[in-house]
């Protein structure tokens, strides 16, 4: 049976395929509750990590011609990425469970041999208490790394710490 091709780092020059407009998932005219999601990507020294490729995929609202459901943002010199998108609603989980509203992120950069998968949940969402994926993370402090904080009207902040204190929970699917 064939074996999946090995991953290699995206490296420092992936901007050659970057279209900065992709960071705005509402650019095609999607209607709904518009939000921004931004945060800082830091390394094991707490230093900002620039030139990271952060990709966003969300199962809700469903993708269509006016809403790609997918976005890509680079981190700037201060390690900050930023998306504009639509606030997701709850979606079906495994075994008839309901998943709390969330976004999937994939983090790529020089020094990352493979992408790192994580999820963004929204603080204050009652369904977070029963979300089956959040429930996989027993330590409340670690679980909290998956929850974005409100940062003003329609603005959410989600920092990504790759290593060490406050390390973000990453998933293997």
């Amino acid at each position, binding site marked *: *049976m*064939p*074996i*999946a*091709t*090995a*991953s*290699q*780092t*995206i*490296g420092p*020059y*992936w*901007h*050659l*395929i970057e279209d900065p407009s992709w960071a705005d998932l509402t650019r095609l005219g999607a209607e709904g509750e518009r939000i921004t999601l931004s945060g800082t990507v830091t*390394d*094991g*020294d707490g230093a900002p*990590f620039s*030139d990271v490729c952060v*990709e966003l*995929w*969300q*199962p809700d609202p469903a*993708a269509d011609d006016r809403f*790609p459901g*997918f976005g890509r943002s680079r981190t700037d010199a201060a390690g900050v990425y930023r998306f504009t998108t639509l606030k997701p609603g709850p*979606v*079906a*989980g*495994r*075994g008839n469970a309901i*998943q709390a509203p*969330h976004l*999937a992120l*994939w983090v*790529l*950069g*020089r*020094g*990352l*041999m*493979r*992408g*790192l*998968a994580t*999820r963004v949940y929204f603080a204050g969402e009652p369904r977070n208490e029963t979300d089956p*994926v959040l429930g*996989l993370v027993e330590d409340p402090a*670690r679980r909290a790394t998956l929850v974005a904080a409100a940062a003003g009207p329609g603005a959410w902040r989600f920092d990504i710490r*790759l*290593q*060490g204190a406050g*390390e*973000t929970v*990453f*998933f*293997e*699917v």
Partner: protein
Amino acid sequence: MADPAPFRPAAPGTQPPYDVPAYLGTRKRHPLQQPVRLDPTLTEANGPRFTPALFPADADLSRVDGHSAQGQRIIVAGTVTDEDGRPVPHTMLELWQANAAGRYHHPADQHDAPLDAHFKGSGRVFTDAAGRYRFLSVLPGAYPWPNHKNAWRPNHIHFSLFGPAFATRLITQMYFPGDPLLAYDPIYNGVPDAAARARLVAAFELDLTEPDYALGYRFDIVLRGRGATPMGI
């Protein structure tokens, strides 16, 4: 609705670890905690769809405004399948690479090698119904990087693929056969399994080579599948 079938775990050694000590960039960027195993939900089992109508293909990196780039012209072609051997049709591939002199058309690349006004070094292609893709380019040059003394990246082309699910997303690099720099490259050698590394090296093929025009290289790509784990792995 039935739950999405699990994706097959990577065969041991066929994917690089996050911590590759010889690749200095991994030291402060690899997580120390084990990843949390997650059975796929709709979130992971679905993924973005790209169509040439909204994301126009650009399968010729060898020319800009009708002018040919400097360097050895090449054709790169192959098939994208999954681990169950099925073709992955109509999926998008993004490509980027250095020019023939080993310089990226990128402001952060300050290597003292010439830029080429007729080479920008990025492209986008889609597989056909049988999972086949093809593009034109020039042979990318090797270039130095600051990982260790006298470090040079082997000639390579970067590939980005999506496949049918967010969980099948793949970023990789294609290398060229016979490149002496492969033996010294910590990124290539970051893949522990020798056969898995060798699969990152394209094959020269006379059948893909076009007379009086360009050398042909085959690079087949396999995305994750969902079949049962083979016995013994």
